[in-house]
């Protein structure tokens, strides 16, 4: 029966080009993450003697920066940072959203009223400004950045999950689970969340694209974690050499765009495939 689900998933991937491209892209990113030491030509943390080399100069495929780091190798290792930020912050956002939104929609009543208000307040907050503020206050380690992105983006997921829970709790199988003596908590985790989580998964994947952009944006403003290799920081450091050594900014910029597009296609493809109207249209 597990096979059954796999074939359904495989069919869905095949049915939507966007989703397929997204899946292939994510696989490629995973390969780059794991095989970075093999694919890169140098250790990107080493400050070599070749400063501001151009393309192909001294064996540096994409040149070097002002500290003599190899741009190509930095971009390869930068995948790790971007994917890590994307996945962890999206997980935080997704888990918070699912739990809070699920509880609000399923429990209803006063709990729902209070949580909905909190969600609305969070949705009104200027997210990027809040992130800036928190990073400025609590320091700019990558962990902080990921946590902050997570806790400023959960309300969107919570809204989606709440709407799902509101309709699921009227379903017979939820009533029947209650009649069979299952506790509210069991019902939330066993029936509401697993049956309502798909839109949240799609939205969370889209959120990954945004997380990459947010991390890059923070780095660009000089609020990134200085102890790691990240595309945003490459642009930040490279922007003063934009006229003399354009390759530092250009290739890291392209890397960001590609990574964002991959997660965007995956998220948007998932959204389309899981929309019930999509399958009807095709049938």
């Amino acid at each position, binding site marked *: *029966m597990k096979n059954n689900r796999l074939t359904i998933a495989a069919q869905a991937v095949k049915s939507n080009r966007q989703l397929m491209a997204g899946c292939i892209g994510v696989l490629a990113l995973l390969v780059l993450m794991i095989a970075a030491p093999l694919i890169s030509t140098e250790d990107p943390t080493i400050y070599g003697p070749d400063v501001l080399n151009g393309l192909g100069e001294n064996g540096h495929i994409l040149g070097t920066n002002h500290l003599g780091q190899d741009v190509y190798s930095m971009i390869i290792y930068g995948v790790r940072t971007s994917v890590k930020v994307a996945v962890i912050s999206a997980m935080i956002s997704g888990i918070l959203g699912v739990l809070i939104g699920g509880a609000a929609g399923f429990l209803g009543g006063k709990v729902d009223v209070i949580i909905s208000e909190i969600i609305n307040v969070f949705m009104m907050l200027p997210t990027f400004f809040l992130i800036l503020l928190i990073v400025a206050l609590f320091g700019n380690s990558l962990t902080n950045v990921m946590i902050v992105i997570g806790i400023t983006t959960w309300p969107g997921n919570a809204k989606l999950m709440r709407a799902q829970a509101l309709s699921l709790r009227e*379903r*017979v*199988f939820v*009533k*029947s*689970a*209650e*009649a*069979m*003596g*299952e*506790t509210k908590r*069991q019902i939330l985790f*066993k*029936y509401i969340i*697993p*049956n309502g989580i798909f839109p949240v998964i799609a939205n969370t994947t889209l959120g990954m694209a945004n997380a990459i952009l947010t991390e890059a944006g923070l780095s660009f403003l000089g609020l990134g974690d200085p102890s790691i290799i990240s595309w945003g920081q490459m642009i930040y450091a490279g922007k003063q050499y934009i006229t003399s050594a354009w390759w530092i900014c250009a290739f890291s910029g392209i890397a960001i765009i590609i990574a964002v597009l991959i997660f965007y296609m995956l998220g948007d493809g998932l959204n389309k495939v899981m929309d019930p109207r999509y399958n009807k249209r095709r049938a």
Partner: protein
Amino acid sequence: MSEKPYVSVENISKWYPYKGDKLINHEKKFIKANDDINLSIQKGEILGVIGESGCGKSTLGKLLTRLETPTAGDCLINGVSTKELIKNDMKAFRRSVQIIFQNPFDTFTPRDTIEQILLRPLKNHNIGNSKEERRKLCIERLEEGGLVPGEDIMKRYPHELSGGQLQRISIIRAMLLDPEFIVADEPVSMLDVSVRAEIINMLLDLAKLHNTAVMFISHDIALTRYISDNIAVMYLGKVVEYGKADEVVNNPGHPYTKALISNCASIDPDDEREEISITGEPPTPLDPGPGCYFAPRCFMACEKCLKEYPDKKNLSDTHWITCMNAE
């Protein structure tokens, strides 16, 4: 009525706040899905509840199984309030009171196999000592219920089974907990006509075997007559007639019951009866009354009927109606 009732419904009401046109008139309106209902059911008895769609049958079922909380009144089991029962020991209450839903296609989560669906409550209620023992019990019950081979059914997902099979599984699952009272809410109305009789028989056989009290909800008076000991007729959230099944069908007292029976082709009464048609607006339980709720459609209605709700009138020791004009 010397025997103490097993289930006793005392002045139970369920009013839903009405959310429409509040801006136009500011008074708060209610949908009186159930309004001041009194009934009782003995151990092992089958009570049929009939009435048109929307008259509050499912609401009554949900109140008795505490899937909804009553606005007023209570339901007692063995003289103890179900409110207390569920507060003191939720699991024990759920074991003793079960419900079969109208829609078998939505009764089970689409993500689980029948095996997972059946094993879960057993584990939750600590029935059986090991997974193997529980599996064996499930397969045994499935096969007793005509679902063979049980091993094979256990591996299926709900969407792979027919409505009849699913409803059997729903009954089997409820019976695994060995309930003392079971509400069957139109259990066959969504099923193919050809399987209805078997499913009802299965339910009633199991109930008889375990001496389970059954509240059988239906809109089919002919069917209900044959399987029930007593019948309650509901109209707009109220019970308007109650009595032994034969009494109610052969000698209906309330004009609404009379109309129901005369419109029912499959009951041919001994004497010729003229057909009584129900006319007027289809009813909504939105702030009904004052007066008899049936008055706008009643062929016997008079001036007085519009003023106050009729009192209960006994036609015999076991048969009563709420109508002021019937004799």
